């Protein structure tokens, strides 16, 4: 206050004008609302923080490095140490580092807020969450970090699985691209491509025994009108659409349309590589695949591919799996203000818009922003449709334990050890036992 008075009292100098201009410029770089506005506040935030990210789909480590460098310009007194692990290691890294308070900011998956929030491993940030964010963000994004009506992080990666296909293969096999609007059409297209001898297996999926397999299953369960848990919270995936989805998956293997490597070791990045090599014609994957598979430096199918909203099931339903992620503050952080500043900055619209090619922003208005649309017009057009209709995996505290038993049973059905109905019945019994334990 004293400083402000002294400035106004003095004659406005050239230096003061430049200083004010710089401060104004920095303020505009900062996140929009609910955030400490003003350079003086940013300068007061000090210290060193550590942040844990994943090196896989979504933002690349280069994107994070760029965002962190931007943050450093606004918060010169905060040093950020970043660390990257594979998605498969992310959950366990957060768990094993919780007691040692290794990280101040951690990236969490949409399936973990219940677990981490209920165990107080991440901070409840509801009191910091500006009301406007709920309206300004897409619904699917907001749901990413919510458990029991409390917020445990700021949504950062808004993702779902889109359908990618090779246009050259479609043309050669004389497949009408419009037929790819439904899963039935996709299977007919796959048969035509196989018959034409273009590839041995037109489809590949991330069906190794892991969460990636469950994401594909959930997306298909939604398309076939299934339900994961019923209204009372009991497993319902062993009825109706849940069973049909798994039967559909198994049939695609039996019919020789799905590459058997899918059930052995293939995860999302393997699907991307096979698609980029022109070895398969179609596949489901996260947003990041578009940029990489369409890059001539690392793909043989660049310029020969298209992306679509996930195909519809028999009833016309087509929800995309909610694969979003959020930045959370570790409960052991010694520097919550710096952690909050960093989380808020990275999730800000300006920062997200700048790297929209790898992961689309969580902010509604970004989808009409010419900068974002221009970055990835093909994906944005499909995202506008799919992001409004997403299927959320259940927000339960024992999600991981439940997921592991379901993964094992779905895997048994996919390799033909059990029928889909038997596998899902067994999975439902085991999942119920986990939920009731």
């Amino acid at each position, binding site marked *: 206050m004293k400083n402000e008075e002294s400035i106004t009292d003095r004659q406005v100098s050239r230096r003061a004008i430049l200083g004010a201009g710089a401060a104004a410029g920095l303020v505009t770089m900062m996140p929009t609302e609910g955030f400490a506005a003003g350079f003086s506040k940013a300068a007061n935030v000090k210290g060193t923080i550590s942040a844990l990210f994943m090196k896989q789909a979504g933002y690349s480590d280069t994107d994070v490095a760029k965002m962190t460098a931007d943050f450093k310009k606004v918060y010169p007194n905060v040093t950020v140490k970043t660390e990257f692990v594979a998605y498969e290691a992310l*959950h366990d890294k957060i*768990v*094993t580092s919780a*007691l040692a308070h290794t990280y101040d900011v951690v990236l969490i998956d949409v399936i973990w807020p219940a677990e981490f929030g209920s165990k107080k491993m991440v901070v409840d940030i509801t009191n910091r969450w500006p009301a406007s964010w709920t309206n300004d963000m897409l619904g699917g994004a907001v749901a990413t970090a919510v458990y029991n009506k409390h917020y445990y992080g700021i949504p950062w990666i808004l993702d779902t699985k889109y359908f990618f296909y090779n246009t050259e293969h479609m043309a050669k096999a004389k497949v009408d691209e419009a037929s790819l609007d439904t899963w039935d059409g996709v299977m007919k297209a796959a048969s035509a491509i196989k018959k034409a001898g273009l590839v041995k297996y037109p489809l590949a999926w991330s069906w190794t025994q892991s969460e990636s397999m469950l994401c594909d299953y959930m997306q298909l369960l939604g398309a076939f009108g299934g339900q994961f848990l019923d209204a009372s919270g009991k497993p319902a995936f062993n009825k109706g659409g849940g069973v049909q989805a798994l039967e559909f998956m198994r049939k695609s293997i039996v019919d020789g349309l799905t590459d058997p490597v899918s059930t052995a070791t293939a995860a999302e990045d393997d699907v991307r590589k096979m698609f980029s090599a022109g070895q398969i014609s179609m596949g489901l994957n996260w947003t990041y695949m578009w940029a990489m598979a369409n890059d001539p430096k690392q793909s043989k199918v660049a310029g020969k591919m298209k992306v679509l909203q996930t195909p519809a099931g028999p009833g016309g339903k087509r929800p995309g799996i909610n694969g979003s992620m959020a930045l959370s503050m570790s409960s052991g952080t010694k520097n919550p203000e710096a952690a909050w500043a960093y989380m808020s900055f990275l999730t800000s619209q300006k920062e997200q818009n700048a790297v929209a090619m790898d992961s689309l922003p969580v902010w509604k208005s970004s989808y009409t922003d010419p900068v974002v649309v221009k970055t990835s017009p093909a994906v944005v057009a499909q995202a506008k449709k799919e992001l409004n209709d997403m299927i959320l995996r259940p927000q339960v505290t024992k999600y991981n*334990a439940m997921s592991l038993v379901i993964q094992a049973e779905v895997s048994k059905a*996919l390799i033909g050890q059990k029928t889909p109905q038997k596998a899902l019945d067994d999975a439902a019994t085991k999942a119920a036992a986990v939920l009731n334990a």
Partner: protein
Amino acid sequence: MIEEKRNVLERFKSSGRFRGEGILAFALILPSLLVVGWIILYPILRTFWMSFFDIESPLPGSYPFVGLHNYFAAFKSSDFRMVTEHSLYFTFVSTFFELTLGILIALLLNSPLKFRGFWRSIVVIPWALPTIVNGALWKWIYNGNYGVLNELLHVFHLGGQGHNWLGSPFEALNMVIIADIWKNTSLVVFFILAGLQTIPSDLYEAARVDGSTPVKSFWNITIPLLVPSIMVVVILRTIDAFKVFDIIYIMTKGGPASGTQTISFYTYQQTFSNEYFGYGSALAYLIVIFTLVIAWFYIKLLRQGTLEGVS
């Protein structure tokens, strides 16, 4: 005489000099004791203590005491029985082949070969490779689409085109065992080679003069004199194989259909992925007990069983 010595010792023990040296000795080993106690003994005891509680978070808190429930839960679990069977199969098959191949390769490297030093050096390579690299390497070798194994089989007209070596549970377990054998046979070779070099060559000479064939010499001289080396390496490999985790994590993550899940991998998942820390601690202790039982079995077998008579 004995009485006199005892009296001298008693006098020395009661003297201040003995007490002073004792204190000094204790003071000198205290830092090591503290470090060892803190990083080894404390976690061992802490894990044992945790195995009696229902702990479902890594953070400190008040957790219910459940006695032996976690141990009983393990024995009741069909998953636990399954992963134990996988581990036992992995352990016996991998150790058997590593030992057999290790002895054969060591005999070869102990014979007067050309460039023997070179051959001995390259045997170390698989063992020197980090397991993570070895796992990734074999995962690619087995890949149904790009794998070298399929390509080799194809070149020699042995089929294998597009075969997915990690695609079915039992086959995948055997394929992971092969990857483990490739890496760890080197270790067996070193131990056996070291053992072979301690056997005096005149024993073979004397046996030859007495009309012994090379095969008879192998069974009557080499193997009995190698027993100490075999015993050490078998126990080492058994313990290591029973605890196998990293190669599974890299190659299959326990799939497909949980066919390659081993007891350590299962323990890891229950502890860190599911956050069942109490149950995971009980599982860790069960691994220790199983390992000790297997090691004891081997020692008994080697000392008193088929190779009886060799001290």
